[in-house]
């Protein structure tokens, strides 16, 4: 298939693999965090790690929009669907994420709540036009990639004068999360996690550009290579990161030049800036409260903000006992370090969010890598 096969070419992969083997010094380790769940998925789906030498390791980052949403926000969504009786529209993955007390939107749906799976926020707009007598809430999640479409929907709703449509906004910001990981004690101290370099997000960077990563590449002296989601992208970006480390450089490099520019998509950025504002802090599953890491809807569009409209407040929620998702999301543990992995927690019966989404590290380990783990 044109424009796909070129990025999955086996001969090119072998060429890159031998370059990586040649250039990675056997005397040191290269721990490279791929930020995005899309990267994690591709590494496992195509078997990219099989082509890496033993001392080059991928550490899976928190870039899975479903995984990082704290349980309390899912409890809030349940409250909207059950107590406020709204039509709650959400992406499919969100429906299966366990909330408090092992509940989920899918279970609420089975019990009669009006929860609908949609493929985009446009579908939710359509549903609100078709149901003028009902409140329709879109459960908006995701990084900078899914934020501009939400902004467009809010503005459309305003322009059309829709009075029954609102957004439960959970959009989060990538650079803040990467910075937080680098500042976390586990990374700073000589300790459990050593992350030598980052493979930066692909789709997110197409929106925000490569420029936002420049600060912490410099500040934390870690190379960042923005990488596409295709397996050859990942391998080339890995080679670029290894070269930076070998040469003692710590720059932002862009492997994904066919899509990402330094400035990004200015129009989308402007749209987002006009519609949303920074939250002073937001809870991430696994990372805790991260300052200035999420967006809320601006006052001018408050009529479309489900949090204001239904007076949604933060709910304290506890992680499932023994679930290591928080550590896994920080790269501090591997899925196989979790007692629940593959025993109690499987994609059919997920305990933690990392096992739900195909972009979650646990789901990728289980689905594509189970044969590697002995005794499961």
């Amino acid at each position, binding site marked *: *298939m044109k424009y*796909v096969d070129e990025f999955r070419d086996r001969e090119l992969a072998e060429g890159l693999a031998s370059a990586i083997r040649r250039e990675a010094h056997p005397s040191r380790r290269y721990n490279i965090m791929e930020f995005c769940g*899309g990267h994690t998925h591709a590494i496992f789906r195509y078997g*990219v790690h099989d082509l890496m030498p033993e001392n080059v390791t991928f550490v899976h980052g928190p870039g899975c929009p479903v995984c990082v949403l704290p349980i309390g926000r899912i409890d809030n969504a349940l409250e909207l669907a059950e107590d406020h009786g709204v039509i709650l529209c959400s992406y499919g*993955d969100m429906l299966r994420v366990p909330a408090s007390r092992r509940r989920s939107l899918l279970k609420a749906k089975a019990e009669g709540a009006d929860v609908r799976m949609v493929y985009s926020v446009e579908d939710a707009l359509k549903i609100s036009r078709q149901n003028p007598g009902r409140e329709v809430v879109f459960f908006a999640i995701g990084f900078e990639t899914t934020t501009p479409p939400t902004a467009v929907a809010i503005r459309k709703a305003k322009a059309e004068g829709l009075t029954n449509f609102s957004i439960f906004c959970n959009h989060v910001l990538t650079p803040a999360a990467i910075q937080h990981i680098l500042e976390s004690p586990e990374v700073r101290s000589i300790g459990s996690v050593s992350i030598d370099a980052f493979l930066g997000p692909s789709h997110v960077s197409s929106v925000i550009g490569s420029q936002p990563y420049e600060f912490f590449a410099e500040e934390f002296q870690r190379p960042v290579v923005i990488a596409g989601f295709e397996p050859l992208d990942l391998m080339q970006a890995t080679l670029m990161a290894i070269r930076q480390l070998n040469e003692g450089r710590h720059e932002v490099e862009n492997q994904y030049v066919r899509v990402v520019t330094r400035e990004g998509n200015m129009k989308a950025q402007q749209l987002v800036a006009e519609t949303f504002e920074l939250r002073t802090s937001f809870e991430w599953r696994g990372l805790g409260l991260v300052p200035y890491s999420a967006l809320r809807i601006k006052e001018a569009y408050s009529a479309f903000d489900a949090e204001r409209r239904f007076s949604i407040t933060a709910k304290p929620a506890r992680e499932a006992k023994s679930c290591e998702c928080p550590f896994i999301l920080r790269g501090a543990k591997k899925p196989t370090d979790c007692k629940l992995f593959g025993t109690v927690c499987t994609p059919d019966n997920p305990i933690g969010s990392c096992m739900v989404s195909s972009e979650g590290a646990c789901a990728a380990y289980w689905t*594509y890598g189970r044969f590697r783990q002995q005794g499961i």
Partner: protein
Amino acid sequence: MTLFATRFASDGGTRLDGAVEMIHGSGGRATTELVRTLFHRHFDNAYLAQGNDQAAFDMEAAQVVMTTDAHVVSPLFFPGGDIGSLAVHGTINYVAMAGARPLYLSAAFILEEGFPLRDLERIVASTARASRDASVPVITDDTKVVEKGKGDGVFITTTGVGIVPAGVNIGDRAKSGDAILVSGTVGDHGVAVLSKRENLTFETGIVSDSAALHGLVAEMVAAVPALHCLRDPKRGGLAATLNEIAQQSGAGMRLVESAIPVKVGALAACELLGLDPLYIANQGKLVAICEKADAGRLLDVMRRHPLGLDAALIGEVLADPHAFISMKTRFGGSRMVDWLAGDPLPRNC
């Protein structure tokens, strides 16, 4: 309420209008009229003409195979078929996967109040056409009507019986060293149906592969009566079917991704939606597992049949008590091919 019969054109039903009403399921005259003028007119055979509540038939002394399959699909009409043809092909294929020759079908229709009669006739005509083309008649049938909101238009359950030819004995035991073959491209049906789902309409040239496979199977078992497994991968795709076989057989498998046939259009749709063709439904494909020594001959026979033109050898069975399936990726790495968990969902990033 107007009785169905009064709206039904005596000249062949081309002016059929109106909708299914509760009275069509009441068991009274309206029910009989619906059955006679719509269902039996299309199914049209001597068994139904007797007007009994059952069909009696003689069978030769042989091993008899029986199967049943409930069909629900959204949307009811999709490129390459509809729920009617699907209900016929699905059950014929289940019978055929025992190496058997399908003989007869039964069909039970559950209709939702308000369902357009015009659409119902399309479905019944398609059911009849599929059964006629396969030479496997519907010899007994039933219709019920449920209130609006308690069904999804039409549900069809079909039962099939068939007989296994002498000398054919297809088990469900794949053995280490066996060859794994597939009869053609995977994922066509699922992609065709997805392309017409509400909220997900996209343009694709892919049509459902819905087809009755008993003709292909007859030639396969004639050539290689000692087939170890035959199965048609439906929901859950090729991955689910291979995992079922692996688990039942207590053996592992090693697949070669580049050998698995997938149409470019299906691949493109999967790329777009973030889906994997190995997990997408099929309705006219089969997986065959046989001794390695028989694989070449079996593949030749399959490729000579119109429904097996793209048949391919895709991997081998291995000794593995975990019954895991791994796959050499096109890219040169290795990955696990697990069961599907939940529904395949398009990705959101």
